[in-house]
């Protein structure tokens, strides 16, 4: 009865959870949501066309809520393995503050309302794309891949990479090579980001039976994969300039960021099996997040500068 504060006259099963509003907000994975919101915003603003600012704001809100719904459904399904990992054991469902059924209902309601509202506010292609993104994260990644293959984060990472395409679709009603390039940047960025975490949390993932790459292929193979993906990321980050979507100003920042990512990955290799390795992994995990935020911020600023004829 952990977290259930009701006084009991007789055993009556789970009828009321002790979840607060804060617990329900935690179900939405607010930190992940910030990345979803920001990349979706970049996709929407970079897309050609105009839209009422109020509708644009509502579109971003819908994408954020859709991302939150994915988080809630993920926490509903993964409560058993979350309970086995220190990092996630205190999440609202394994912590006993929210009942699994509440998390499921909350997630499904938010998914439905976000998709419906996005369709009403913008277009039904974007709404369908958002629905597909939620489906991909919950069904393809959470239910199917996560517990079965070390490639879980590679394929499942697509779900986190779709938001800029959904933002683009909200503005244009379709997709384009430019939005696919934004998708590709996040898609390639995801594995090294999470594998750096998996290297330091290997025991946790092992205890939960999640086949992350270090648990299945070993630390050495994971470090090499982090480096290869970082090299691929440095190149992918340059595509907006190579393909003419962004200027050389963006390209210069992309080169710097790409080199920095490769250096961080090489640092993990250099410090392999030493006491300094966890710190290098945490640095990769944190600074790769910063890299993605800065890269997308520069895509946005550069695009705005190009649209206004600054360069």
């Amino acid at each position: 009865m952990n977290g259930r504060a009701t006084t009991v006259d007789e055993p009556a099963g789970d009828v009321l959870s002790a979840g607060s509003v804060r617990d329900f907000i935690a179900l939405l994975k607010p930190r992940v949501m910030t990345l979803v919101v920001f990349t979706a915003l970049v996709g929407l603003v970079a897309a050609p066309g105009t839209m009422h600012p109020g509708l644009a704001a509502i579109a971003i809100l819908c994408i954020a809520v859709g991302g939150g719904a994915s988080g809630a459904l993920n926490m509903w399904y993964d409560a058993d393995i979350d309970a086995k990992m220190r990092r996630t054991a205190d999440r609202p469902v394994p912590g006993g503050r929210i009942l699994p059924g509440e998390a499921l209902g909350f997630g499904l309601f938010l998914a439905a309302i976000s998709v419906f509202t996005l369709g009403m506010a913008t277009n039904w292609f974007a709404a369908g794309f958002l629905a597909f993104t939620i489906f991909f994260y919950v069904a393809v990644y959470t239910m199917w891949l996560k517990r079965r293959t070390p490639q879980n984060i590679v394929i499942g990472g697509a779900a986190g990479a779709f938001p800029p395409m959904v933002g683009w679709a909200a503005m244009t009603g379709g997709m384009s090579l430019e939005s696919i390039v934004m998708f590709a940047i996040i898609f390639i960025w995801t594995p090294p980001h999470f594998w750096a975490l998996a290297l330091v949390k290997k025991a946790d993932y092992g205890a939960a039976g999640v086949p992350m790459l270090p648990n299945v292929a070993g630390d050495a193979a994971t470090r090499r994969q982090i480096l290869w993906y970082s090299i691929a990321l440095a190149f992918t980050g340059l595509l907006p300039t190579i393909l003419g979507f962004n200027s050389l100003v963006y390209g210069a920042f992309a080169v710097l960021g790409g080199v920095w990512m490769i250096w961080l990955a090489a640092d993990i290799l250099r410090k392999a099996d030493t006491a300094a390795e966890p710190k290098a992994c945490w640095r990769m995990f944190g600074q790769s997040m910063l890299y993605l935020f800065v890269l997308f911020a520069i895509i946005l600023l550069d695009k705005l500068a190009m649209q206004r004829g600054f360069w």
Partner: protein
Amino acid sequence: MMSDLKSTGLTPSPADKRRQKTRSLAIAGALVFLAILFYLITIFKMGAGILNKGI
């Protein structure tokens, strides 16, 4: 929910009642927000064209 509790023999503590009240208020707030949101979507989508009606 409260009637569910009574029917199962559970007595909500004051803390439970407070939490329930906060949750109910949050749900009410969310519903009001949604209603306003749908109004806004309608108004934004009407755009300036609403002023060009024939006499």
